[in-house]
């Protein structure tokens, strides 16, 4: 077991230094949010810019996961621990966003499942999963 911990130790240290940077005087303490925003926008971009239906859903996932991360970030309290009551700990991180995000994750996977089911049907009906090709077919039908 100790070996396993050792492997992850450098990673964790890296994180701690990163965290110190984020809250330290060198940054406005918002860097974490900004990175999350960048992630969100990556996902958002994938959703609206790509034509592939599966990829859109992947983008949606990325978008949502980033939003979850945003919630979890705001829940963090410096020096706090996971919100499980234990003796001798007085500072916990905020549990409420965790609860909300648990719910949101489920909602996300539900949406993904439905979306993918639709993609399968669309593929069978149109023989493609590229949005622009489908649009072309539909315009043809409208005429």
């Amino acid at each position, binding site marked *: 077991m100790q070996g396993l911990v050792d492997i992850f130790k450098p990673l964790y240290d890296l994180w701690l230094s990163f965290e110190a940077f984020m809250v330290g005087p060198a940054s406005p303490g918002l860097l974490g949010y900004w990175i999350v925003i960048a992630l969100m926008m990556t996902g958002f971009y994938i959703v609206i810019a790509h034509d592939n239906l599966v990829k859109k859903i992947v983008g949606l996932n990325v978008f949502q996961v980033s939003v979850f991360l945003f919630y979890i970030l705001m829940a963090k309290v410096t020096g706090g621990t*996971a919100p*499980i009551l234990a003796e001798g700990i007085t500072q916990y991180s905020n549990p409420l966003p965790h609860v909300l995000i648990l719910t949101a994750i*489920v909602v996300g996977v539900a949406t993904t499942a439905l979306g*993918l*089911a639709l993609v*399968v049907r669309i*593929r069978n009906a149109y023989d493609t999963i590229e949005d622009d090709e489908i649009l072309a077919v539909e315009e043809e039908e409208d005429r």
Partner: protein
Amino acid sequence: MMHRKVVLRVVSKFLIPPILLFALYVQFHGDFGPGGGFQAGVIFGSGFILYAILFGVETVKRVLPPWSTRLLLVVGVLTYGLTGVAGLILGGNYLDYNVLAHDPLHGQHYGILIVELGVGITVAASMITIFNVFAGQSGGD
């Protein structure tokens, strides 16, 4: 699928029971450590999914016929919902667990336990249903 991968099949035969057990542990230990009905349901469901990937959907269906997953879906959802109704009948508000037992603390305990169970059942049944439907498709190319 991977019908011919003997190693995988053997290993997974060993793996699946612990997975299911672990799911049960997560289910009932959620009050103390991380975990709870939802996570347990997912794990439980993935146990079956793993089984289905390796041995084919039909095999799973023999163990767990579609009507039973569907029934479980409903049972899970209703377990949760009716717990709330029980609170109503016993004189509290909806989802009020305090009235479930004489001691509010016990009531809360029972309530959460039952509710989490409901979540677990629903999630597991949902996972299996969704996967089965996907896997039951004829396939594109």
